[in-house]
């Protein structure tokens, strides 16, 4: 059973996905995003504006709409600032209670606490439970261990807009089938093709795979000469519904997450970080690898964007249900996770 093709553009389906799928677990940020008190990330998903903050009692998430006149308290994005609305200075305590409101008539204040949401953490990754239940994260540490991803402070971050449904971005990264056709200037020269060796595993809300180059293209020895912990592989992890992580050659880590805007528009926020083996190398090498990783990722994402947007257009035209292939087992797994949660929304 696959996800019905009508689920890729219907605003009603999209609204229900926000209420079910994205309310179950949503990527909120990494340890690096909340390293210091008052570090925050503020985001918008559907009609929810939420800010996630490092407070003295840990990382907490609150409604980000000021109780006074509805300004966003933390502006979209991330940074470090006191939990105080910039408009008239109403400020909030670590539990979301209104702490100070200059010049107010106390009798006029009916609401004095922001709504809050549970946040779960595992392996340096924070997740938000917009539905009110703490997101289950018990598979996260294992998927990080299986792929060797150690989230760290990014050396590059960017956002890319896509004119497609969020599920197309998910499906696109869950298979290596398209590599030879789409990634002529990124994955293919790096040794990763549609026919490379591929292994995968799926859990209750995670999946991962490892791709290895064909023997003739295998550069493991040369990579090990540079860094003994390195290898020639590409490992990719998915945490349902919105988070992707990858490990290239044991050197470069990648984290991205989809931010659904509406049924046919999705933002992909991505960042690159060094894995421990890269951090141990001389600065000139690190610098060069970082630059290469940025160029590679920009190239690969641009190559993918054309095709996921082409799928969206195809889905909006008359067509047929998908015909998934054995190489696309992780997509079938994703569809099963989706359908189990939506009952075919």
């Amino acid at each position, binding site marked *: 059973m696959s996800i019905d093709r009508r689920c890729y553009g219907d605003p009603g389906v999209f609204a229900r996905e926000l209420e079910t799928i994205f309310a179950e677990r949503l990527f909120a940020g990494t340890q690096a995003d909340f390293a210091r008190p008052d570090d925050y990330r503020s985001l918008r998903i559907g009609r929810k504006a939420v800010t996630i903050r490092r407070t003295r009692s840990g990382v907490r998430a609150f409604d980000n709409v000021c109780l006074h006149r509805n300004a966003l308290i933390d502006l979209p994005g991330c940074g470090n600032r006191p939990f105080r609305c910039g408009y008239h200075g109403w400020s909030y305590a670590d539990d979301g209670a209104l702490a100070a409101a200059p010049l107010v008539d106390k009798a006029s204040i009916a609401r004095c606490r922001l709504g809050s949401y549970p946040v779960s953490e595992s392996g340096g990754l924070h997740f938000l439970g917009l539905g009110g239940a703490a997101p289950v994260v018990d598979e996260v540490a294992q998927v990080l261990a299986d792929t060797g991803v150690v989230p760290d402070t990014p050396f590059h971050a960017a956002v890319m807009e896509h004119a497609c449904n969020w599920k197309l971005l998910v499906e696109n990264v869950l298979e290596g089938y398209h590599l030879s056709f789409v990634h002529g200037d990124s994955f293919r*020269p790096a040794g990763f093709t549609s026919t490379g060796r591929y292994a995968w595993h799926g859990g209750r809300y995670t999946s991962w795979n490892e791709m290895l180059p064909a023997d003739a293209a295998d*550069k493991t020895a*040369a*990579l090990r*000469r*540079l860094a003994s912990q390195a290898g020639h592989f590409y490992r990719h992890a998915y945490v349902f519904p919105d988070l992707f992580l990858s490990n290239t050659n044991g050197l470069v880590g990648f984290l991205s997450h989809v931010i659904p805007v509406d049924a046919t528009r999705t933002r992909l926020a991505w960042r690159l970080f060094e894995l421990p083996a890269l951090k141990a*190398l*001389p*600065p*000139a*090498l690190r*610098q*060069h*690898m970082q*630059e*290469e990783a940025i160029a590679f990722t920009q190239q690969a994402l641009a190559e993918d964007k054309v095709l996921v947007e082409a799928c969206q257009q195809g889905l909006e035209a008359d067509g047929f249900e998908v015909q998934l292939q054995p190489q696309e087992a992780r997509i079938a797994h994703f569809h099963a996770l989706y359908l189990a949660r939506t009952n075919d929304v």
Partner: protein
Amino acid sequence: MTIDDFIEKFAFAIEVEADTLTLDIRFKELPSWDSLNTLAVIAMADADYGVTVTGRDIEASTTVADIWAIVSSKCAAAK
């Protein structure tokens, strides 16, 4: 620090036989040249000469002599 020494180290870094390499070889035209070799040359300059050669230095270079000029001048500047 001699040129011969450098050629030997350069050859080892990019995994070709030292006696096939001369100063006027356009190293990026070697059939075995790939992006990993850029990293290997950066690593060699760092480990064997204690100087920083960047990816851009290598990109801007054509022959082994060009890289030698960069390494030797950086070594001289470091003294």
